[in-house]
């Protein structure tokens, strides 16, 4: 039971570098989300997807991009990293069929990113 898998667990980037945070789920969930969590703060939604080929902006999308070419994968791309992007990033997934409420979110273990 892998659930939601995020890689890498830790990463240090220099200002201006780019990277992709990987997220994969094996539960056939249609909804996937990226959140960031700054120290002592709640979760802020970056991007989300309701199915393959469909993505939409969350609360704090600037500086990030996503794609959803398959149901399983939802990578988050950081272009031109900035110190303000230092945070812990969580990927999550859930399932909804028709008009039913979504299932609770299953979270990955997070990626701790430092930009210096």
């Amino acid at each position, binding site marked *: 039971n892998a659930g939601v898998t995020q890689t890498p667990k830790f990463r240090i980037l220099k200002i201006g570098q780019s990277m992709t945070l990987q997220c994969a789920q094996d539960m056939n969930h249609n909804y996937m989300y990226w959140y960031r969590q700054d120290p002592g703060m709640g979760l802020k939604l970056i991007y989300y997807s309701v199915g393959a080929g469909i993505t939409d902006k969350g609360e704090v999308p600037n500086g990030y991009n996503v794609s959803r070419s398959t149901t399983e994968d939802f990578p988050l791309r950081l272009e031109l990293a900035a110190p303000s992007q230092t945070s812990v990033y969580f990927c999550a997934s859930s399932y909804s069929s028709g008009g039913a409420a979504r299932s609770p979110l299953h*979270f990955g273990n*997070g990626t701790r990113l430092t930009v210096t």
Partner: protein
Amino acid sequence: EDKVVQSPLSLVVHEGDTVTLNCSYEVTNFRSLLWYKQEKKAPTFLFMLTSSGIEKKSGRLSSILDKKELFSILNITATQTGDSAVYLCTPEGYGNKLVFGAGTILRVKS
């Protein structure tokens, strides 16, 4: 725009105390409200509430929803040090983004 306000932002209690955490929300086409507990790592699911006035219970934790007044409470009785965590709530509406409140940081002292 969806809004979620949790209170208090932080709380320090002693073992054995009872605590009440609050979550007020505004969301279009409300369907459910979920509570999560976050310790060192990723949040873990506690409760999903869809109907007003029906208490959900799990051990020493319980939660209830008021859809008329747009709030939910999470109660923890006989607190233990293992209850120390951040407690997060998120309301779900049709097609909404799943926005979280800022969370309540609970610290239980032995």
